[in-house]
């Protein structure tokens, strides 16, 4: 116990004493770790799982939607804008350049970005669940 004297107090009023514990740095052990919540399928465990699924599903859905728009839009684009056929990329007509070449690196880049984000989501989940 340490005493912190307050200046200017009248001596008949009891001093206020500040109590501190020397073990301020001790960690509090979680009594119910999140991993156990998930194992026992409690409401809280379900919430954790639900959030993981939702995050990953949203990412997957996002990638699929972009893919669907690009892939689904291309035939229509070529149909509705005939002038695109005249555009040439390195001497190759645009439809051929896109479908025969450029789309493959686009797939790989998209895939790489997805893998990075999905792994990040999993790391966050692991941190969330192991910490508490």
């Amino acid at each position, binding site marked *: 116990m340490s005493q912190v004297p307050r200046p200017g107090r009248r001596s008949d009023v009891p001093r206020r004493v500040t109590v501190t514990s020397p073990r301020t740095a001790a960690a509090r052990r979680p009594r119910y770790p999140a991993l156990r919540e998930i194992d026992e399928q409690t409401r809280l465990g379900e919430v954790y799982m639900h959030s993981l699924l939702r995050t990953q599903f949203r990412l997957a859905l996002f990638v699929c939607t972009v893919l669907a728009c690009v*892939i689904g839009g291309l035939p229509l684009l070529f149909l509705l804008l005939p002038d695109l056929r005249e555009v040439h990329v390195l001497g190759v007509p645009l439809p051929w350049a896109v479908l025969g070449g450029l789309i493959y690196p686009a797939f790989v880049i998209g*895939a790489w970005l*997805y893998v990075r984000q999905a792994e990040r989501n999993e790391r966050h989940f692991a941190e969330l669940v192991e910490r508490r």
Partner: protein
Amino acid sequence: MSLTAVLVVMLAAVLIGAFGIRFSRTTSDFYVASRTVSPLWNASAIGGEYLSAASFLGIAGLILSFGVDMLWLPVGWTGGYLVLLVLVSAPLRRSGAYTLPDFAEARLESMTVRRTASVLVVLIGGLYLMPQFQSAGLVLRTITGAPVWVGGLLVAVVVAVNVLSGGMRSITFVQAFQYWLKLTALAVPLVFLLLAWRADGAPAVSAADALTWQTPLGGVREYGLYSTYSLILATFLGTMGLPHVLVRFYTNPDGRAARRTTLVVLSLLGAFYLLPTVYGWLGRMYAPDLVRTDTVVLTLPARMIGGTLGDLLTALVTAGAFAAFLSTSSGLTVSVAGVIAQDLLKGGVRSFRIATLMAVAVPLALALWARALPVADVVGLAFAVAASSFCPLLVLGIWWRRLSTTGALAGLFVGGGLACAAVLVTIVGGPASGLAGALLAQPAAWTVPIAFAVMVAVSFLTPHRVPPGTARTMVRLHTPENLDLDRGDWRPRSS
């Protein structure tokens, strides 16, 4: 010389496969290459297995015949892996399933669903195998003039011997080698062909072709827009439902590696698919008489170059073609035989051997009896069946907790059944004309939505049939392996 090349490839496949005999003693070695395979090897093996005769020969033939619209086939076959990566790869690996029926049983805890899945695997696999044997016969006839049944029989025998002796482990090395062989077999002659084209003054396609063949949807196919979209749907969604694709996932150590391997596969496939397009385009200019055949890749070197160099290049390309037949047929045979052995026979190494013979003999018989359709078209039909049955099962099974057993069954029956019926009509009756013909030749645009709708609707109607272990299964499928969680004690059937 080409015949020599063919024999060399076959011999090499058998020899490399023979080294696998030493390693495959137990059943699990037999089915799955015990996960000591590095990612690049695995990705090469996946690519090697995936690139069938349809990719090697069929695409170029179709592009020559029908123009730029056919480019959607290779785009779809590659994009299908992207869809697989995003929707299915890591959870599927984490499920621990060796095969699609394994996954069906693990997720839905029902033997009926498992058996239905097995039947569909056999159907899809058979549908994919048949055109490989047909194509082999046609290639051999083109090169040597031998009757059509010889090529098919030859490939069937080599595949059976390879699979019977080595199982999965040896197949992995063979497949990996064959990817690089196929890539080389297309790339090297192409260099010479392009040089010859340049020497010719770099001609372009004829003016008439520039209007119809070279422009999207400018060709002679009626209902082109519908067919294009249906093809896109079938190829993008069907990849995940192919029997020989899932088996390769298990050779990854965990879900994360499964994703990364798929990324490498995408790159390898993309690199390969740049090539057949150029063959088709060159063929349109130099060999326009080859319309509606699959032989442009084989005959172009001889036509454009000729002489000894032309012979050598033809031999190389033929070797690549046979590598394509062997690799895909082996992969398919292993998966189909695996499913037959586990679910229709007793299981174990002996059943697997009997199943291998069955898995090879029936498609071979069909190949010899049925008429010859373009190989890429028949393969496309296999994709349509896979997209209408296994795609809904996998996507809903992995992401939707309320999928019920009855719903899954209903979706498999309706989607798979409708697609199979359309396929049967198309193959037996031949390509019909008019709207009905277009709908049947490319059924995915209507069978896939119907399958999804049925699965979802019936699941809503039967909420009491949701599998009781769904929550635990979701933990198994989605949580990273390094977390110490209870993932249930389901184990796959095979040993």
